[in-house]
């Protein structure tokens, strides 16, 4: 669409600008301010320049949780995106079953994140939880509270349970936008189910998938509440993700300077990866 040049449009944007600036710029400035000072108490602080950045970048805790974070976000995307597409393809398209499966699938999305943690905390326990009990009774030695692998696996399974629906609903909506004639033409062209998926459905899903990947990357990279409730980051540090390392640093140990420096580095990583996605989206929009 051709847009009209009009700087008065700023009047329409001003409320958003002010609101977000209030909630984003002031706190961000505070964080920047902390990150270059050594703070002892309210009245005593020294300017330390880039000292904290140097310290944080060399901190093995950051390296470890960053690595865990990338492995986790990568696994999340690798499982949830294909699974979400598959679920969307299998969803009924009309009648009450369509509405019903839509509503049922959306349930996990609407549960507060700490309740999600609680649900899985209970569900996975060997004594009172169905999942833990079932695994143990078929002979799998499963205990997320003591075995790091089990804990990591449980957090991942929980995230898949929690968020695959989002990808599925996005894709479902994308699929509904394909006119019936495409499927009819494909049948007449003798396309296999795979060819229909590859040449009709997948191309139409491209833009919703970019949105899905973007949202899932951002949110899984910032994950905090669910693993915190489920495992508290343990056993050991096996499920301690970036957010949690950060909150421990800032609130638990009150290392404000390093925590602030850490925050900014963290923010920059998310920003960089998301920017890549964002440019992809605008490219797609333009190509249309």
């Amino acid at each position, binding site marked *: 669409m051709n847009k009209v040049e009009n700087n008065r449009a700023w009047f329409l944007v001003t409320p958003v600008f002010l609101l977000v600036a209030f909630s984003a710029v002031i706190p961000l400035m505070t964080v920047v301010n902390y990150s270059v000072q050594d703070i002892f108490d309210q009245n005593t602080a020294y300017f330390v320049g880039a000292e904290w950045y140097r310290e944080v970048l060399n901190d093995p805790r950051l390296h470890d949780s960053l690595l865990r974070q990338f492995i986790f976000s990568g696994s999340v995307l690798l499982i949830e995106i294909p699974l979400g597409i598959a679920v969307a393809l299998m969803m009924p398209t009309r009648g009450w079953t369509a509405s019903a499966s839509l509503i049922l699938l959306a349930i996990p999305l609407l549960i507060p994140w700490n309740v999600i943690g609680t649900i899985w905390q209970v569900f996975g326990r060997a004594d009172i939880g169905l999942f833990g009990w079932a695994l143990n009774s078929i002979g799998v030695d499963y205990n997320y509270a003591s075995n790091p692998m089990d804990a990591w696996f449980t957090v991942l399974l929980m995230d898949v349970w929690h968020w695959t629906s989002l990808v599925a609903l996005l894709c479902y909506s994308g699929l509904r936008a394909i*006119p019936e*004639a*495409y499927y*009819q*033409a494909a*049948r*007449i*062209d*003798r*396309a*296999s189910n795979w*060819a229909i998926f590859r*040449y*009709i459905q*997948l*191309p*139409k899903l491209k833009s919703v998938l970019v949105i899905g990947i973007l949202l899932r990357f951002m949110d899984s990279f910032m994950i905090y509440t669910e693993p915190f409730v489920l495992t508290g980051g343990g056993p050991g540090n096996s499920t301690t993700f970036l957010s949690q390392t950060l909150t421990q640093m800032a609130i638990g140990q009150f290392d404000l300077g390093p925590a602030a420096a850490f925050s900014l580095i963290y923010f920059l990583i998310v920003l960089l990866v998301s920017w890549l996605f964002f440019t992809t989206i605008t490219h797609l929009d333009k190509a249309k």
Partner: protein
Amino acid sequence: MAEIHLKALAHSYSDAPKGPADYAIREMDHVWKQGGAYALLGPSGCGKSTLLNIISGLLSPSDGDVLFDGKRVNDIPPETRNIAQVFQFPVIYDSMTVFDNLAFPLRNMKVPEAKVQAKVLEIAEILELQDMLKNKAKNLTADEKQKVSMGRGLVRDDVSAILFDEPLTVIDPHLKWKLRRKLKQIHEQFNITMVYVTHDQLEASTFADKIAVMYNGQIVQFGTPRELFESPNHTFVGYFIGSPGMNVVEVQRHNGGVTFNGVDIPLDDGLVDFLNQVPGNNLKIGIRPEFVHVSGESVLGAYEADISHLEDLGTYKILTFRLGGETMKARLDEDQEVPSGKAYVSFPKQWLKLYVDEYLVEDTYDE
């Protein structure tokens, strides 16, 4: 190669149809001969797309059979029916090039790549797509896209019929005739049965040798454009074909003919005899505006009518007049003298049609 026979075919979208109103297609018997160019003409909602989808196999009819060359194909899915279908909105595979689009059906059938190449090039040449084979299909214009979707039907050797579902809807007017001519040319070249669905009588008559007019789920007439014009078999065909449509007036029986509001119209003896034998009271007469004779002076057998309106359309004029309380139209040549106020109109016998229960009754054969 195929002759398509619809045998006692009917279709209802409801599971338990109660009356004729529940049927999208009412019981019909119809044959599309091998190699013919046919049009299926009718207003939207008359069931023509339903019928097309039944022929292609996208829909399975609730009653009756579809026969291809005498073989029942009801249970054969569209992919193995050897037909191609072109839809109202061009269906192309966005992510592929034009070449890959055309090659798609062949590759799905595992045709050797060398043959695919040859066949695609041949068809691209005919459709004048050879210069854009390497382009992404999604950047094409609407008429090029429609040619590509047609091409996907033509590349297949086994295709014996192509079905078109209002294929020119989204095409610019100045390109429509070009594409229609292309269709005609392909028809002559390939000896393929073509069925073309449209609601536009001009499109139908320029494309097809024979037109089937559909109304309310039934084929009410199947004939050449000339037959449809000169002797419409059903009052609907009269209305729908021609511009303006046929004048149709409700009448009662009368001594030696029929009458409406004091206007007596004599009929041939054969028709009068026939009228006396049928019980129905739904009688109508129809005459095309082209055949209404208009004169300024009173002549033998003419009726006096009030002129209400004259439209000059350049090459011809439409005269609207009132006769016996009914509004009727006449189409006059541009150079014909037009009386003002009153006119004397007459209805030449060979063009005056009688309809009983909406269907044409003709003198020549007594049913």
